[in-house]
């Protein structure tokens, strides 16, 4: 059992990612432990979404390996990949709700496919998730009838449908108002504390970096590597390179304001 705990949730080993011949990030190494809130930051276009999509197995890396609970998602064949994928939920940058289905159907889809729950149990669970993200009553609506922020929250409800072990977020708080963004942060911390869910979060939101993250890595477009890593508070003290400093100082600024 002790040995089992020692296996990290996610491991990126010498990871080089990109599109075709274009290398976006090179020789990335990091480890994410169970129950950790791991935040990936960096300027726009530095490859945050790219690395996230590699971690969830959508793209094949140019080089290196990704281990999810010690199993390589890179070398897995499609059946194994699907099995690994079922253990995590993903919140996409654009929400990615299925536009042909209602919100309830979107959230119920995985429950219908992967569990034997009767219909009323599925319905109960769907409503529970909707309540969690503050969207009670939005179930019968179509995704096109929701605002950007509501879509994002509905998508989060869908990502949580099977109570996954790992949740990936691509910019959860963009297009949310400050109050809802803070609610999202609380929700993330609450989920981690209650269920021990591991969270991998890509974000620009400086407040939430300080509020929720256990560990941060910062990617850089120019050097194509990780330029800073550690606890956010430690990062600021430890005389980081200018680009990192600027990013974090702006975070400090916006924190002073409230």
């Amino acid at each position: 059992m002790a040995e089992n705990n020692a296996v990290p949730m996610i491991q990126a080993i010498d990871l080089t990612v990109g599109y075709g011949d274009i290398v976006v990030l090179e020789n990335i190494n990091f480890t994410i432990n169970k129950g950790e809130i791991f935040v990936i930051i960096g300027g726009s276009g530095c490859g945050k979404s790219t690395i996230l999509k590699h971690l969830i197995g959508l793209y094949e890396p140019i080089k290196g390996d990704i281990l999810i609970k010690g199993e390589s998602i890179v070398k897995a064949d499609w059946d194994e990949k699907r099995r690994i994928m079922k253990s995590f939920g993903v919140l996409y940058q654009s929400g990615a709700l299925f536009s042909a289905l209602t919100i309830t159907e979107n959230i119920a889809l995985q429950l219908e496919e992967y569990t034997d729950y009767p219909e009323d149990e599925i319905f109960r669970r769907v409503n529970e998730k909707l309540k969690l993200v503050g969207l009670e009553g939005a179930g019968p609506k179509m995704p096109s009838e929701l605002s950007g922020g509501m879509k994002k929250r509905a998508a989060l409800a869908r990502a949580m449908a099977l109570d996954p072990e790992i949740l990936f977020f691509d910019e959860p708080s963009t297009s949310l108002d400050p109050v809802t963004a803070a609610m999202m942060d609380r929700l993330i911390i609450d989920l981690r504390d209650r269920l021990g869910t591991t969270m991998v979060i890509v974000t620009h939101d400086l407040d939430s970096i300080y509020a929720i993250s256990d560990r941060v890595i910062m990617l850089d477009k120019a050097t194509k590597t990780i330029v800073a890593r550690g606890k956010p508070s430690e990062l600021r003290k430890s005389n980081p390179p200018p680009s990192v400093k600027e990013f974090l100082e702006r975070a400090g600024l916006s924190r002073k304001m409230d």
Partner: protein
Amino acid sequence: MAEEKDRIIETEVQKQFRLHEPQIRPAIEYTGEASLKFWKDIINILAIIGEIAEASWFAIRNPRRIRWRETLFYMDICGADALPISCMICYLMGLILGFQASLQMHKFGTDLYVADMVGLSIVKELGPLMVAMICTGRAGSAFAAEISTMKVSEEIDAMVTMGFNPSRFLIIPKLLALILVMPVLTVFGNVLGIIGGMTVGVFSLGLPVITYFNRTVLVITPRTFSEGLIKSAVFAVLIAAVGCLRGLEAKNDTHGVGSAATSAVVSGIFLVIIADTLMTYLFSRF
């Protein structure tokens, strides 16, 4: 020196707009590239048909897990909504054929053979073909546009990471809907086409309705009738497959959606004609 710099800047600018600039390329280069693309395309089409076969096999073994609600939805938009236009076009087709045939047959005094000519052409060829053309334009392009839009909005990615097989979720309901609906449309089209021919026979050649009808029933054997329906079902598979393929391989932008739809129609028509040629040959041999 300044001129030199200007030129460099100009080419930089040109590079940015390279998509919108018409390109004149050597014919050999173009031919080579086009045939390579064509070859890759054939491989892709075969691959997707293989994938569809696998997904269909899964569907046959687990009929409960077919997404019937979506299938019904597509049957509605591909079938019910396409019925008036299919009937209309087939009726006009019968009318045109009847008229052309009546001109020739009348010369030989074999007016009644108009019924043979129209009946056989419609049931064996034109009924299935016209319905296939309409379905390529309506359903094939719609499938491609739908799937490529889903790609742009990350819905396909979401589907994959939720552990679903996109072919089972996206292709099977569409394929099933078309396979069920196109033969039915063809039957309606056949009937209307024959009525078109009959209109000419009765009003222009003065044949009695019952004579024309009896002649038609005599020449259209169950075999010819089912040949047409088999063709129609095969066309359905091709149209659905190529529509979904074009959607799945679309570029990740809004421009990609448009070209996916266009390309679905062009390749759909092409494949349907090829398959028709092959099947006509095969049916004539056996």
